């Protein structure tokens, strides 16, 4: 039986009819045309389907669409604001932290949350936190550098706001 869910998607109120077996990932791709998150392993292992649900990154491939009523959903498509790209996005570009770009949306969303929890992570902490995001092009070195730079950018931004 389909269920109506009302939620905020990248800042806008939306609603959808979802089937019980449907995943959040399928809902966003099929009904809302958002292609940044992709099904790859389908098992919670690779992180290419990462979506932020009310502040928490989840594997969209294992997340029941029925459960998102009342939640705030953020996908890579919602990261850019009127002021431009998000600092984590800037840092990924500056450091060329990708080759094909397939894993990048998931990496960026995961890194965003990491830096919210830990503004200045060590390389070890970055590796631990990002361990469930796989990059087949093995841009890991650059990804770590990008997260380091994003950490600095975000701290500067914060200092600027407080000044």
């Amino acid at each position, binding site marked *: 039986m389909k269920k109506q869910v009302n939620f905020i998607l990248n800042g806008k109120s939306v609603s959808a009819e979802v089937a*019980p077996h449907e995943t959040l990932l399928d809902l966003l791709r099929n009904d809302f045309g958002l292609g940044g998150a992709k099904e790859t392993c389908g098992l919670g292992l690779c992180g290419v389907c990462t979506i932020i649900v009310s502040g928490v990154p*989840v594997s969209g491939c*294992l997340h029941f669409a029925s459960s998102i009523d009342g939640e705030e959903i953020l996908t890579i498509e919602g990261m850019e604001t009127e002021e431009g790209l998000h600092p984590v996005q800037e840092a990924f570009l500056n450091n060329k932290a990708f080759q094909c770009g397939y894993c990048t949306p998931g990496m960026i969303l995961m890194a965003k949350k990491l830096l919210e929890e830990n503004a200045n992570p060590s390389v070890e902490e970055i590796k631990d936190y990002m361990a469930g995001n796989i990059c087949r092009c093995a841009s890991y070195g650059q990804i770590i550098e990008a997260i380091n730079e994003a950490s600095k950018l975000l701290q500067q931004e914060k200092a600027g706001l407080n000044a």
Partner: protein
Amino acid sequence: MGDTLWLEPEKLSEVKDILSSGDPEIRVVSGGTALSLIMKQGMFDPNKIVSLKKLQSELRYITSDKAGNVRIGSMTTLRDLEVDALIKEKAPVLSEALTHVANPRIRYVASIGGNLSHGDAHLDMPPILMAMGAEVKIESAKGDRWLDLKEFFKGYYETAIEPDEILTEIMIPKQAEGIVGTYIKYTTLSNDDWPTVGVAAFLKKTDGIAGDSRIVISAATDIPTQLFDVQHIIDGNQLDKTTIQKAAEKAFEVAEPLEDLRGSVWYKKEMVKVHVRKALEQLAKE
């Protein structure tokens, strides 16, 4: 397929009422990381899903009671437990093990109640909690009951929870003075894979003599298994090379592993031996 009704009750009492029909086709869901996979693979098609999402205020907590026991609500996420100061103080083995469970994305969502109720042999929380003597609270419209975790796991994906019941709390008893513990997760595929063998070992050391030992192996066997014969060898003895060797040999002898993609029966018996030895060596040093 497709007729499943999704329910989001706001009170525990409502959940119990819904479950009271005892229909095995009704399924509770917490984080959904395990149930979604089973449903996606078409292995299970419940007619009703009762989401516990709106019960967070009732079932998501970590506290300690007057007696010093730790009480954990079943909707507490693995991430909540991993970073919690009380757990780090009272059950550091658990906090440490959690850093190697899946990845942060899964830990943000997966609940401790779901981890236990899933009844999967390849999980890391059950052996540790069992070795610490944890008990679980199971509720239904008929009433509540407490069960020692040792009696909770019944078989492959089978637990003592009846269709009309729900797991609501986990209680970790206060560990006696002088208890040391460790958990070794041995993986053969990737580093953050489910364990091939898990060994939880807790014991008390008094002037170098070991006592009150609790050795639980998991993942290799269909349910987490306490190795009483191994404990008999340890208790009352110096935790020296000879005792440890004897205990490890005994573990090899009594372990009854299942063969799967992570290893053959013989291989897993060997790995049980190796990791029981390593766990005890670690405790000998503490």
